């Protein structure tokens, strides 16, 4: 793997692993799927392809953060506020 990109990939993996702790289906489930997803592309050498995959990973990070926020927001709204109908 090209050297600067190696840091990027490791950063991505660490961040996703950290976010996975709160995953609704369980941290272990998330970790398993995360490892599979990364292992699938472990022999990729084209830096352009790697950059695309990292960008996809960053997108997943944003989706996870949105998922966690919405879950919490909806739970709080349901518990503390009257239904608006």
């Amino acid at each position, binding site marked *: 793997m090209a050297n600067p990109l190696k840091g990027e990939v490791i950063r991505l993996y*660490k*961040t996703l692993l*950290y*976010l996975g702790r709160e995953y*609704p289906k369980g941290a272990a489930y998330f970790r398993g799927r995360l490892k599979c997803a990364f292992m699938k592309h472990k022999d990729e050498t084209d830096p352009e392809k790697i950059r695309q995959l990292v960008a996809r990973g960053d997108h997943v990070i944003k989706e996870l*953060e949105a998922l*966690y*926020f919405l*879950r*919490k*927001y909806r*739970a*709080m*709204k349901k*518990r*503390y*506020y009257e239904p608006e109908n």
Partner: protein
Amino acid sequence: MSGRVLVGVKRVIDYAVKIRVKPDNSGVVTDGVKHSMNPFCEIAVEEAVKLKEKKLIKEVVAVSCGPQQSQETIRTALAMGADRGIHVEVSGKDYETLGPLQVSKILAALAKKEDAQLIILGKQAIDDDCNQTGQMTAALLDWPQGTFASEVSMDGAQVKVVREIDGGLETIKINTPAVLTADLRLNTPRYATLPNIMKAKKKKIANVKPADLGVDLTSRLEVLRVDEPPQRQAGMKVETVEDLVEKLRDTGMV
């Protein structure tokens, strides 16, 4: 004005955990259960950090009262952008009876000591649902309060607060120093990312004892019993509309 904001954060059982009552009905099971920052406190921290980013205030100080583990909650606040933390150490029996009255006495003493311009708290904690700490703190300090805030803007030495009330929204203008409590729609709290958590390790958390602040922690409340809510009765299935009407008549609803 010092430009300092005190934000109170509470360590509570995580909102997604299924709560279980202890077999002796003395309380709720907390050992080994996932804890995190109270969701309304997250919104309070986010608002304080936003004010700092807009350069309307200078320093955000995160405060938490509790045992050693409360430091984790302060670290989360630091990772979200608070500048430093104050951990008021309360453990054992004192922690079990710690309630809004004691916490508001602590916050009032700290506000005077730190010369705070604003105190921002969550409107209530999801474990005790008291919704009292903000109001009591304001009363002890004789400061104005903007509670259930869904929008906050600063106008010189005054704060404009849009409050969520039963009839809709109420806009008030109050002088600083003041106490604000955050409601759900005030903002969207940022997620504490790994690099920020690493940076937060360098920020200082001061350790303080309630006795140092001259606060008496004796509680005037005693918890007698904790029970689970009644189990929902299973519903009944009926075959036809006539059956349904008959059942409704039987139970006196029609």
